[in-house]
């Protein structure tokens, strides 16, 4: 299950989708809109996705995970649109026969999602707004060869 949705997120459908009879563990992650970000008061967030690229990029992350760990299934859903404080922006669930694989793969999934999946959030604060997107400046996507040389 890999999706971009404008509806509110819940873990249960992802957990159900990934649990197999071989699964002994399901690790999951929920990203939540928090009140404070880098010291500023958040009013709300607006998420935007390049959907046709974002979903294949999620599948690529799942392929990376399968090459690194023995997992059963992987699900990732990202929400877009207007999100209030306390609402979930991203949900990930990974099942595996053993817990260490599930936990490591889940941590990897959210790190990679933030690096490579083209989804942006506009943080709207009491005193301004700013777009935040894939972690290109960390060299996370693929290094500097993909930058515009200006």
């Amino acid at each position, binding site marked *: 299950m890999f999706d971009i949705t404008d509806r509110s997120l819940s873990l249960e459908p992802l957990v159900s989708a990934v649990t197999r009879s071989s699964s002994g563990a399901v690790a999951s992650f929920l990203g939540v809109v928090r009140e404070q970000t880098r010291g500023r008061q958040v009013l709300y967030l607006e998420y935007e996705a390049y959907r046709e*690229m974002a979903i294949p990029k999620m599948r690529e992350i799942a392929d990376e995970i399968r090459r690194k760990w023995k997992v059963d299934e992987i699900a990732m859903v990202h929400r877009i649109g207007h999100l209030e404080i306390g609402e979930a922006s991203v949900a990930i669930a990974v099942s595996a026969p053993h817990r260490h694989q599930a936990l490591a793969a889940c941590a990897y999934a959210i790190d990679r999602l933030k690096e490579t999946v*083209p989804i*942006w959030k506009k943080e709207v604060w009491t005193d301004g707004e700013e777009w*935040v997107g894939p972690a*290109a400046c*960390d060299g996370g996507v693929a290094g500097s060869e993909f*930058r515009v040389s200006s």
Partner: protein
Amino acid sequence: MKVRVRCFAAAREIVGSGELVVDLPEGSTLTQLFDQVQGQFPRLQGLAGSLLFSVNREYAPSDKRLSADDEVALIPPVSGGADV
């Protein structure tokens, strides 16, 4: 040749639209495409230092040569980093 350019986030706001169609000479690179778009929307200069491109939904280096009907996207930079 005509190339479709999709614009997101800060790039979309500067361009004022989620999509442009750009007419370029055959064999142009992403850099040449960006120069032309930036000519039309000079405020894109502010993003240029860390803007990424995709071509047909894969990240692509700026010297990549384009073909007609390619779908290019301007992938704007992180301003603050992944904070959660």
